[in-house]
């Protein structure tokens, strides 16, 4: 299949082309813009799915940019010379998450942005952000990863702050930009250190050469710090509630997927680049305890929130903690190859998909509430269920899934995390369970306050496009809740395996034998 070979780069290049062509089409005609956006979105999703199918059926896919043929070897004279895209199970899985969230955001923005100013700008930035996310997930080159990281930073902050006629979003955008830039520069510094030591930027080549010197440890620390800053884990989480709370809903859900792309970068660094030299139990414990701390701090902060947007934002931050906990436990068990380590990895990675769908659904519902009533202050909301029937249903579904109520998807992934983190340390498991319970209490109160009770004010119903976007995410949540086994076996399992013991395959695919 000749066309499928090009799928990884098309998934990145087509949204880029779409972003830059969008203003030109707007100049020609308004409806042309919407048609173009829909076409680009559909094509990108098709490409991502093509990549995923190829990777899950026939293994790691490598694409060498600028070579005579896409599969030409990147190594010439024992040295990698070109930029390469390398998609393994984990990358393909992350691409699917980005595609799902991007699709929902695009559909939602057709309805949501109709009466807002700056729709063309918002859509352009959205496509840039999408391309950047997919680039981060598919690239096999450290510096290329940094470039895409910064593309997402710039696009994300512009998306948070493009509504310059209000002051709060711009303030959130400034804060976010400062954190993102410092995080990105830490990553760049460590890439510089790695380049100075080994003279290459290719992840697979670096991984085959890395020796674990003192400098490597510094580089690992800088990468860990920079990527966690961008992911919004606890010591550096203060930008996240502002950005999630102030960004328009269709942008906020892409921001969530973007933090996950940063987490993916962290997994790639830990499990592919440094796995041969780091002391896995120590780093695993570090990541897992950061995760537990994130859960604890975010959930406790959520209890005091009076704004629906910020409440959901803290919920989103706490979910980052579950992912860190799951994968951290997996890393701690990596060197002894315990079975429960793989279970923890599966839990943490499955939770990424769950988080994207669940938090995305909640944020979209909050966006509908804000559009319907003009406020997100919980004290002045009430009785919205009378007017927003579908939205309140979706919100309830999101709350139940987020808290991990048994038949839904959140339970499936959280149970994997509880079970396996208990094997490492009962305290971690206790924090995770406690976080879940508190989260359920907080969100149940928010749901009851905003949607139940007597009707306080008139609310505008949601438009069909917005309901459709929420419907997509709700359908994914229900599907994952009803058949978690299918998802774990066919999507999450290969992704976790790719990190757990796929390093040699990855190296062989990129470096050739």
């Amino acid at each position, binding site marked *: 299949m000749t066309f499928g070979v*090009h799928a990884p*780069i*098309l998934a990145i*290049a087509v949204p*880029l*082309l779409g972003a*830059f*062509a969008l*203003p*030109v089409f707007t*100049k020609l005609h308004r409806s042309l813009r919407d048609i173009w956006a829909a076409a680009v979105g559909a094509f990108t999703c098709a490409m991502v799915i093509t990549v995923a199918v190829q990777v899950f059926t026939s293994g790691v896919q490598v*694409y*060498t*940019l*600028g*070579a*005579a*043929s*896409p599969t*030409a070897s990147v190594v010439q004279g024992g040295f990698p010379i070109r930029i390469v895209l390398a998609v393994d199970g984990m990358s393909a899985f992350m691409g699917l998450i980005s595609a799902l969230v991007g699709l929902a955001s695009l559909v939602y923005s057709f309805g949501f942005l109709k009466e807002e100013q700056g729709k063309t700008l918002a859509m352009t930035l959205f496509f840039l952000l999408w391309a950047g996310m997919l680039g981060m997930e598919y690239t096999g080159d450290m510096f290329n990863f940094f470039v895409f990281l910064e593309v997402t930073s710039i696009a994300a902050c512009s998306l948070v702050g493009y509504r310059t006629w209000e002051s709060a979003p711009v303030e959130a955008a400034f804060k976010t930009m400062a954190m993102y830039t410092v995080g990105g520069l830490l990553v760049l510094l460590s890439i510089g250190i790695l380049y100075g030591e080994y003279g290459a930027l290719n992840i697979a080549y670096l991984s085959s050469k890395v020796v674990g010197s003192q400098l490597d440890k510094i580089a690992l620390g800088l990468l860990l710090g920079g990527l966690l800053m961008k992911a919004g884990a606890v010591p550096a989480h203060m930008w996240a509630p502002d950005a999630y709370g102030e960004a328009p809903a269709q942008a906020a859900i892409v921001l969530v997927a973007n933090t996950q792309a940063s987490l993916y970068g962290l997994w790639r660094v830990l499990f592919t680049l440094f796995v041969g030299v780091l002391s896995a139990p120590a780093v695993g414990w570090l990541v897992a305890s950061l995760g537990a701390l994130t859960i604890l701090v975010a959930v406790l902060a959520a209890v005091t929130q009076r704004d629906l947007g910020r409440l959901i934002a803290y919920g989103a931050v706490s979910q980052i903690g579950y992912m860190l906990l799951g994968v951290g436990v997996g890393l701690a068990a990596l060197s002894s190859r315990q079975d429960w380590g793989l279970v923890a990895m599966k839990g943490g990675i499955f939770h990424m998909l769950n988080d994207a769908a669940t938090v995305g659904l909640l944020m979209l519902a909050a966006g509908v509430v804000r559009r319907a009533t003009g406020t997100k202050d919980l004290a002045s909301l009430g009785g919205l269920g009378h007017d927003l029937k579908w939205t309140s249903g979706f919100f309830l579904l999101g709350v139940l899934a987020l808290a991990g109520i048994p038949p839904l998807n959140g339970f499936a992934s959280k149970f994997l995390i509880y079970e396996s983190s208990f094997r490492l340390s009962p305290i971690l498991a206790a924090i995770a369970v406690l976080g879940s319970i508190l989260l359920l209490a907080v969100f149940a109160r928010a749901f009851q306050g905003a949607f139940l009770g007597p009707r306080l004010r008139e609310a505008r119903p949601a438009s069909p496009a917005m309901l459709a976007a929420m419907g997509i995410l709700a359908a994914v949540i229900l599907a994952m809740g009803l058949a978690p086994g299918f998802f774990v076996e066919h999507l999450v399992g290969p992704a976790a395996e790719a990190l757990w013991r796929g390093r040699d395959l990855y190296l062989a695919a990129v470096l050739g034998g």
Partner: protein
Amino acid sequence: MTVVVRTVARIIAPMILAFGGYVIMHGHLTPGGGFQGGAVAASALALLAISFGFGRWKGIKAPLSFLEDLGALAFVALGFLGIGYTFFRNVLAASGGLFGAPVPPGPNPGLLETGGTLPLMNWAVGLKVIAGLGSVVLLLGLFGGEDDR
């Protein structure tokens, strides 16, 4: 600004623009390229904007942002040219066509017609940077101007 500044700006700005164009055009031969040349040329725009006042340049904001889009589009489109082989493949190099002259072996003073798609990409990037940086300077100046002066 004073008449001295305006006169000097009027003389120097074309030179800066020309130098920017030179840096872009020779990007594949000497240090420099699209971004550097574009930044040089955009500094001419900044000089003009500062010496003649920002208000007078309000009208070129929309054309500049359109130009920026075109530059970015051209860059991605040039990447797509190679899709028969791979994305970003330099299909024009040594093809005999535009910028397609083969490079003779050994040291040479730099041949402008070599480089394939690289000079075209430099121009796309240069266009984008001139327009983008110019409009950034213009917008910042227009924003701040109303309160300060």
